[in-house]
């Protein structure tokens, strides 16, 4: 019993991490129609931003309020980078989707290399409050606090994004803008602003994932974002492009499947199962779990 609870809760922690990465990706992908390979870069910026702030920013540190400040700084840095990327690189290429994807590919190469050039290839210990290293006993299972932190953060992010989409006009503008940008302009709306905003939110979510991922992993390294990205992609696709709620479901499924199969099956089977799950879902329901049926 204890094992099952432990696996379930740590699986949810993993799911939360996937969701944090996937949420921004899904938002940008679903709304702005950009398959953003540079998401890993935003993640890295968030993680390194937090790491740098904890060591150098007055008032920030690895503990208590200082840590909150450091994370805030990291998130701000990630957001800023995302905004810049949108303004400088993505915006001039609007409606040329493939080129946009390619620019983000280029950016992911260059960006990670830049992080590495600046801070070296080796993993650095990540500043984090001590309690995140401890465990909490839940029904006989020793559940890592870091995982619990991720779960809470993921729920908050999910709520915030849903609120944004539901209660602001931007969601609408962006969805329409993806379909026909020109026509949105012809309705008197400055669609560019909306796109920048989406990138900003996506970047912020990614940077937060980077910072909390740092807490979870205990280190920060240039390639970290990239390695999480592939599972985040899978989560986004299983969940249905652009459906944040779908991503949440998918993240939970993926996290739990991976965790349980890895325990009860042989190693590596978890990954293969997840990939298989992706293929099956897409073949049965090409639009993903929560995706809308796209018709001509």
């Amino acid at each position: 019993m204890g094992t099952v609870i432990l696996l379930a809760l740590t699986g949810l922690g993993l799911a939360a991490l996937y969701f944090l990465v996937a949420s921004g990706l899904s938002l940008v992908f679903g709304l702005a129609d950009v398959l953003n390979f540079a998401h890993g870069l935003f993640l890295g910026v968030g993680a390194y931003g937090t790491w740098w702030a904890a060591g150098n920013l007055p008032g920030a540190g690895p503990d208590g309020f200082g840590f909150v400040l450091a994370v805030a700084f990291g998130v701000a840095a990630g957001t800023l980078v995302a905004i810049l990327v949108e303004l400088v690189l993505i915006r001039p290429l609007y409606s040329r989707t493939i080129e946009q994807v390619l620019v983000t590919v280029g950016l992911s190469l260059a960006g990670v290399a830049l992080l590495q050039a600046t801070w070296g290839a080796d993993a650095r210990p990540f500043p984090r409050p001590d309690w995140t290293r401890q465990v909490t006993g839940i029904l006989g299972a020793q559940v890592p606090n870091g995982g619990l932190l991720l779960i809470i953060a993921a729920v908050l992010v999910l709520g915030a994004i849903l609120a944004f989409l539901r209660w602001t006009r931007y969601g609408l503008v962006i969805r329409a803008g993806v379909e026909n940008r020109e026509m949105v302009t012809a309705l008197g709306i400055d669609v560019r602003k909306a796109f920048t905003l989406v990138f900003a939110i996506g970047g912020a979510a990614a940077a937060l994932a980077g910072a909390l991922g740092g807490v979870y992993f205990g280190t920060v390294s240039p390639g970290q974002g990239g390695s999480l990205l592939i599972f985040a992609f899978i989560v986004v696709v299983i969940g249905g492009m652009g459906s944040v709620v779908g991503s949440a479901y998918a993240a939970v499924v993926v996290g739990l499947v991976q965790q349980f199969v890895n325990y009860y099956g042989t190693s590596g089977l978890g990954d293969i199962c997840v990939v298989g799950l992706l293929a099956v879902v897409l073949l049965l329901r090409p639009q993903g779990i929560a995706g809308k049926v796209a018709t001509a």
Partner: protein
Amino acid sequence: MEPILSVTDLSVRISGLHILQGVSFTVAPTGVTVLLGRNGVGKTTTLRAILGLTPPAGEVRGTIRMGAQSLLSRPTHRLVRGGLGYVPEDRDVFAGLTVAENLRLAERRGTTPAYDKVFALFPELDRRGRQRAGSLSGGQQQMLAIGRVLLNDNRLLLVDEPTKGLAPKVVTEVAEVLERVAESVPVLLVEQNLAVVRRLAKDAVVLAAGKVAWTGDAGELLLETALTKSLLGVGSAEVAH
């Protein structure tokens, strides 16, 4: 009367093609001005140039003025917010959004959208509020496209073939709507249905091969068989039909 819109020596090139070659005309501050011409003469291109929607590869020369204000090189969304409404040729409703969302998107900040007016004209749109616009029939999409601009107050409407694909009854209705709209807002209309033209148009501009072939009073144009024959390729008998 001062024209609401004046286009002077407008020329548009798109990837090497000289599509408009020095087009000049004006739109009167009241009533409907109709833009006529065969397929491919550049009617749509003219409307899009006015709105600043020429593709990036294109090159626009000339002047376009609305009142004292020059329109060229101002971003489209500003022009529209300034009261320029556009009903595009291909309807361009947002297929993935519901009808209600399409309408909501067209609301302009700081004004009260005239939903009553729109729903009174097109009750279909009210009924189908939750349907995805992409699954509407062709005619329903056209209604939505027109409904969208009627939500707001405009200073000038640019309407590109609004009756295309509509059932005769709806054509009549749309014509009536436009007639009523034109009482308060001037309209620049592209239309192939000569019956509609006859009913609505006050002034006419005829394009041929990227140039203005004729401008003047629409009634006059449609009455003179020789003129219609040479400009539009149809006898006035057919026009009256």
